């Protein structure tokens, strides 16, 4: 196809589509009035244009919506699936089996301690009375102790006392609920399989609690060092690796 165009035709097309600047438009309209051939061309083109809207698309225009990619839902752990599979017992049954649960748990080594006006549930041998976590006042030699003692227990005693009330309440609630549900089922079935499951769960609970305990105390250990560094106006990096000196005049309170 020849795509070169007579400038007059180019102006004609620009005029046809209203793309001619105002100054040129008036001049071109004068030309249209004078040139019959050009006017006829214009009228034919305009007539053809007028026919085009008759081409209709009858079908409904589909609607397009982009759906955001969402992350795969988190896969429930064995424990979550196990808990979700149990029906919630009636309040009376719940109370009864909660009591049974506590008795069984006590037999398995569960201890209940009163701490800060609340109750703490723990397995295992009774530890020494929790030490209020006051970090001992630092003397001139304690920087060395920090380096020599890898678990840094001299500066930040890792005791259960660091566990917050909220964390403890959550753990206790989960523990009681889980045992209640497990024993509720065992009360109905009285079969060896369910009993084995309860025992397995109790072991899992012990393991979980021990692991959480280590995580919490480990985290608090680091937090305690950060507090120590902040109190002495040095960075944690300097405190741990660069031999930053601690100010013995600024004793630390272990728990903020």
């Amino acid at each position, binding site marked *: 196809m020849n795509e070169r165009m007579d400038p007059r035709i180019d102006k004609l097309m620009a005029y046809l589509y209203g793309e001619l600047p105002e100054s040129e438009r008036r001049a071109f309209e004068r030309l249209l009035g004078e040139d019959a051939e050009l006017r006829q061309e214009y009228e034919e083109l305009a007539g053809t244009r007028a026919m085009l809207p008759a081409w209709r698309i*009858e079908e409904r225009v589909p609607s397009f919506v*982009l759906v955001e990619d969402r992350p795969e839902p988190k896969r429930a752990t064995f424990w979550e699936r196990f808990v979700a599979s149990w029906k919630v017992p009636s309040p009376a049954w719940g109370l009864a089996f909660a009591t049974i649960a506590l008795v069984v748990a006590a037999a398995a080594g569960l201890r209940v301690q009163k701490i800060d006006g609340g109750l703490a549930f723990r397995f295992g041998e009774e530890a020494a009375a929790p030490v209020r976590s006051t970090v001992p006042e630092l003397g001139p030699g304690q920087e060395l102790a920090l380096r020599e003692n890898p678990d840094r227990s001299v500066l930040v005693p890792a005791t259960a006392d660091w566990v917050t009330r909220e964390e403890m309440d959550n753990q206790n609630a989960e523990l009681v609920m889980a045992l209640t549900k497990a024993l509720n089922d065992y009360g109905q079935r009285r079969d060896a399989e369910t009993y084995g499951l309860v025992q397995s769960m109790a072991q899992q609970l012990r393991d979980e609690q021990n692991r959480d305990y280590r995580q919490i105390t480990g985290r608090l250990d680091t937090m305690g060092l950060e507090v120590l560094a902040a109190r002495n106006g040095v960075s944690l990096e300097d405190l741990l690796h660069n031999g930053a000196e601690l100010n013995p005049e600024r004793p630390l309170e272990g728990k903020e």
Partner: protein
Amino acid sequence: MDFLEQFPPPPRPTGDERGIRRPGEARVQTFTDGELVARCQDGDVAAFNQLASRWESSLYGFVRRTLGDGEDARDVCQEALVKAWTNISRLRDGEKFKSWVHYIALNLCRDRFRSPRARTEVLAFEDEPAEPTEAIASGSRSDSSDAGAEAASRSRVLESALAELPAEQRTAILLREFQGFTSDEIGEITGVPAATVRTRIYYGLRALRKSLDARGIAASDV
């Protein structure tokens, strides 16, 4: 030259320009394409869906008329919008979104025409006898009481006549007459100067007129 290189980068919209509401301001706000594109570039899928909703009718009409098949048109539109979303960060002037997404769709249509299957289908479509012509030109129209059927016949005649045009002329006419693009915008979409676009439309309209005359259809019939 790549289509995107023709557009200079826009100034980054400020928070106010992008429709962040101040206390006491009116809640209703219509975003421009540029504002919506800026949001898309921040990962806002809802903003993209607003853009899609704004231009889907134009896009579908263009693709549907280009391909001649509704199902293919749906596929191409969907693909074009997905491509637009995945490449939205490359669009430097958000106000050009409409041109850009039609450009993407046009290229997808061209890809379809290049495939053997598409060529067969297009040829088959173009070879269809223009039977509606007789119904319109013979004067039997006055006997027909179904105005809807008559309109459908006219539509098919025009579709058939436009299908006979060379692809570049048909594309220019579709973008100009049905999608409302200017010659400059069509030039950006098709990669030719605006004067060339006007030339294509001129020759396309003349050829269309000739085709309709051959079928005995005058402007007053349509």
